[in-house]
């Protein structure tokens, strides 16, 4: 595709349920990032994938959060036993390389609401 695609666009789930959020990066982009944006706040880093290297999971807030990237392309962020404080917009970004000045291209995010 032409840009980073995320699905679903919106997700409402009941507290305690598991959810999966999907990200399709731009073809050929080796770096992929997940961020969380709580209402009216800046973006909080969650996890970073670069090629076949081990991911940087330093931003994951708890062990209920996990992510994988299959075949160096599509990524799935999984939240287990969702809590109300997990409600936020989850943004995915990809970039061609991991170079410091490289532009990160963002998707439109998934708005997660836990009721």
């Amino acid at each position: 595709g032409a840009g980073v695609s995320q699905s679903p666009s919106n997700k409402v789930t009941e507290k305690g349920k598991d959810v999966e959020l999907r990200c399709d990066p731009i073809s050929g982009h080796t770096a992929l990032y997940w961020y969380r944006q709580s209402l009216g706040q800046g973006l909080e880093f969650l996890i970073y994938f670069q090629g076949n290297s081990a991911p940087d999971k330093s931003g994951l807030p708890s062990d209920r959060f996990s992510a994988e990237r299959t075949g160096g392309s599509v990524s799935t962020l999984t939240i287990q036993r969702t809590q109300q404080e997990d409600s936020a917009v989850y943004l995915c970004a990809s970039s061609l390389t991991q170079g410091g000045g490289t532009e990160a291209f963002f998707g439109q995010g998934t708005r997660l609401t836990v009721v």
Partner: protein
Amino acid sequence: AQTVTQSQPEMSVQEAETVTLSCTYDTSESDYYLFWYKQPPSRQMILVIRQEAYKQQNATENRFSVNFQKAAKSFSLKISDSQLGDAAMYFCASRGSARQLTFGSGTQLTVLP
């Protein structure tokens, strides 16, 4: 660790006027990059402008320019000839040796017709 601070939660500007959004940052690294991203209601973050810390010359992209004061760790964004389409949330961000971006809390810009 890097930190980014945006002290103006909201700003407004009259159409065709100029507005400056403030950003300060803190880092112990010598090699880093600074960015301004725009987030319209569609939620998609769009890169507005970027600055390499080792370059003294301020970056410019059409109506958008920065005032990069390295010693003061300040990185403000100037929007000239503001247009209605500039209305959005603006985020300042930095990136150093850690490859993720560190974002400020954002400034909501309103453009008044």
